[in-house]
């Protein structure tokens, strides 16, 4: 019986003008988004440096003593092949870590000076789903109960041996299936296009992420399908349902998510740049040099200072991310925000990706330093003493060697597993919202007067 309802509703939807309008809009935007992204990605990928500038010379070798006094090397975050799914932060957040071999010094945005003139950032699928398809969910459901009630067909349907729960579930499934049609067709077309253009190589992990993203989107849309049904169940006629949905949609999709940055800025818990500078200037006092120290002790104190600076930078970054996350925690009452944060994690973008990249950079630097120190041990002329910012002397080997794989920086994106783990609470929240919306809609519909209300 459920499937009869679903089938009838689904056919209704598929033939309606609003469905076609929504389909065309979504399809076109998702396709153009992919096209633009693939061109952008190809350009980014071409510019991605093979060697770490500043540490390794052209033929892949390293002058051991010289590397100790070098700063200003930089590693870049690898461009994400899934930027079309979630792009927030791809143009705003730092994507480059400046370092010396003894410490990551700062993070900055790589060179794309044109970005400033290009204020309209990329429109990714997450945004399109949040705005267009969630609206589509309302479009398909807002009058599904109130409209039938007004037309008097609800009484007719209930005259059949079919429960109210079945009707509600039928309408829900039909709307969700219609949305899934729009989404899945656009998604498949987009991905096929991506393969045809061929500039974006997708690995197995990426396919898993795309599939997970699809699933996540469907969970998100199911919240809005129920929201539409809720509006339809609680109001007297389709006009009121539409108005109610409009207000709900506006609040959930525009008002609450956009307050995130504002709220995060208000709390101001992150240290200011000036405080950080003060903290940096205090580091030499904590690791003091005295004239009685041996050369080895001086070297180790100097290295400790560099490590402390790196730690300061990392903890600064953590507090900045925490401030952002605080603003987001507050906006999670909106499913649109929860969806976008879950998408960020599953796709591996935004601040999640940034911290992952910085971890990669630090790990790379430590591994490289270790390799250098190992290589130095083979040189009998050296005194095996690594002193930051000091080259020359007999402290460290003067040989030029190939340090092996440690010289290569391989940036990886967070794996799908890590993404799911980090997105757990957001997905849970989305499920929770679905269940609450369903429960309330069912509770209300079960005791509703199905006769047409007077005056509608």
């Amino acid at each position, binding site marked *: 019986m459920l499937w009869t309802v679903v089938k009838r509703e689904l056919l209704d939807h598929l033939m309606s003008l609003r469905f076609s309008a929504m389909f065309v809009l979504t399809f076109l935007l998702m396709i153009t988004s992919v096209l633009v992204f693939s061109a*952008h990605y190809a350009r980014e990928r071409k510019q991605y440096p093979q060697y770490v500038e500043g540490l390794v010379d052209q033929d892949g070798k390293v002058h051991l003593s010289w590397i100790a006094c070098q700063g200003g090397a930089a590693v870049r975050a690898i461009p994400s092949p899934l930027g079309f799914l979630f792009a927030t932060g791809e143009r705003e957040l730092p994507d480059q870590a400046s370092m010396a071999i003894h410490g990551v010094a700062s993070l900055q*945005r790589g060179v794309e000076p044109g970005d*400033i003139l290009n204020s309209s950032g990329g429109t990714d699928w997450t945004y399109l789903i949040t705005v267009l398809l969630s609206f589509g969910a309302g479009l398909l459901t807002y009058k599904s109960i109130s409209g039938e009630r007004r037309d008097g067909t609800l009484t007719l349907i209930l005259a059949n041996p079919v429960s109210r729960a079945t009707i509600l579930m039928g309408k829900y499934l039909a709307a969700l299936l219609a949305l899934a049609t729009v989404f899945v067709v656009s998604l498949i077309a987009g991905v096929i296009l991506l393969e045809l253009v061929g500039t974006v190589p997708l690995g197995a992990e990426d396919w898993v992420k795309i599939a997970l993203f699809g699933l996540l989107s469907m969970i998100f849309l199911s919240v809005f399908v129920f929201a539409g049904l809720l509006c339809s169940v609680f109001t007297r006629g389709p006009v009121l349902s539409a108005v109610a949905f409009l207000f709900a949609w506006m609040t959930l999709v525009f008002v609450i998510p956009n307050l995130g940055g504002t709220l995060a800025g208000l709390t101001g818990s992150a240290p200011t740049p*000036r405080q950080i500078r003060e903290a940096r200037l205090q580091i030499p006092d904590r690791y003091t040099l005295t004239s009685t120290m041996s050369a080895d002790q001086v070297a180790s104190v100097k290295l400790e200072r560099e490590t402390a600076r790196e730690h300061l930078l990392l903890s600064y970054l953590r507090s900045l991310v925490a401030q952002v996350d605080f603003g987001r925690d507050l906006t999670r009452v909106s499913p649109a925000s929860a969806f976008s944060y879950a998408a960020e994690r599953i796709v591996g973008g935004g*601040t999640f990706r940034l911290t992952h990249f910085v971890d990669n950079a630090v790990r790379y630097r430590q591994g490289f330093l270790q390799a250098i120190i190992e290589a130095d041990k083979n040189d009998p002329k050296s005194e095996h003493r690594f002193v930051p910012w000091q080259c020359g002397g007999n402290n460290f080997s003067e040989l030029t060697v190939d340090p092996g794989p440690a010289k290569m920086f391989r940036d990886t994106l967070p794996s799908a597993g890590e993404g799911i783990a980090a997105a757990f609470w957001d997905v849970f929240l989305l499920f929770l919202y679905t269940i609450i919306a369903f429960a309330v809609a069912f509770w209300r519909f079960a005791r509703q007067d199905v006769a047409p209300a007077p005056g509608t």
Partner: protein
Amino acid sequence: MIWHITRKELLVNLQSLRFLIGLVVSALMMGIVGYVLVEDYAARVQKYIADVQEHREALAQTKVYSTIAVVVDIPPSPLSVFSRGSQDLPTAVQVSPYHVPSLIDEAGGSASIGLSGTSSQPSNPLLRMFTSIDLGFVISTILSLFAVLLVFDSFSGEREQGTLKLLLSSSAGRSHLLAGKYLGALLTLAIPLTVGFLEVMILWALHPALSFDASVWAGVGLVYLASLLFLSGFLALAMFLSLYAKESSSCLMYLLLAWVTVAVVIPAGGGFVAEYLRPLGLRENMLSESERASTEFMKALGRIDYRQIGPWNNVSTNPFEGESFLGITQEEAYNRLAYNQKVVPMKFQFAEDRFRVVESYARALRSWGRTRDNLIRPSLCVAYDNIVKAVAGTDVDSFDDVVRKARLYRDMMMAYLRPRSGTPAWFTRVFDYPDVQPTESNQKYWQSLIEKQGEQAVEKILSWDRVSPLDLSAMPSPAVGMRGAAERVEGALPDALFLFALCLLFLVLSILRVRHYPLN
């Protein structure tokens, strides 16, 4: 007759539930955003004052001419409450002898996270990943939705209730009815708008640290008018589309689809098209040309015949007889002076050459940006956004203007500095402290240095601290302010005219359509 209908419509709207909810939502939203942005503005003013002070002190500490760097701080715009503009735009422009400021160079690096704590850094660069939200945004999304809500059933609703026939049986013509309903809705919409503006003004007035002059209030007036123009345009569009729908509820949904198209689809789609049109090779060209310029420069440096310049022992009379220099010997001072007289003019020239390369790239990018703007301008929201940004002075053009003024200032500064580039003070100072003594505070440092580097070196290092700064009182100081009100209005004019034309177009179309509106 029109006024009669307008009055009735207004009263009906004011009593409706949707008006109440809409008013509360928009007043809340504008209140919160207004509060945060006013606080943000006050904080930025504080930071601006501190920065100006810090940069002035840093400049006053300059000891040789070659390291002069004047930082031109850009005052925050009080109207940024209405439009924050691009957050990538830096708050200062650097002017120095070897570098000509350009739009491209100044605009980098604002996303950096480091430990140096330079004042140009925003307090949390990660916050840039949130959409920047301002009152302009609230008006162009929330109030435009409100506009849709007010007019979607103005005709279909009357028809469904059967009152349309009654209305038309009176002496009012159809176009009068349309005009009356339109004006009624516009007046209704003006209420939440006015409330929002009043909220901001109250917040301003209550804030202890802020006070404004007449030009700011005039700017507020202009933004208000622009908002009204935008809302009337949106109302006209909604009115026109609503005349095509059979049923009120589906009319609302189609209007919302149109709203999504105007507010989301056109800006995004236009951006996509523009990305496609983007001149891809430009940046590579710029980089290779700037590379070439620096190679040329290096080559030119290599061509200098150093035998003609020095060495010291070829000179019969010592030009620096009896003087000692900071950090260097008399011989070094002489050699470097001779070297500088050759090389510094070349460095100036190189800065100019490099600037020309970068600037032509910036111009190309700007013209591409204008193409994109033109593509997405048909969206009322974009045109409105452009107007507010231009009036508030937070758009790229205003920033470009500051950079241009900074360049003009650099010319004046160079006129002062050029004659001094041939003097020893360009890179060193006469050493007039032969009696450097360790103080109590630097004793430990002093001891360890002497152990390592020997007494003479230490003397040199310490004496730099004790040298008096240059007297720069005769150097022109920068007078770079925001664009004048007239210029800003001029920048906003094309978009305002465009918006006005769109509004008229939709009104005329509505009048044409309403003549054929079916009664049943």
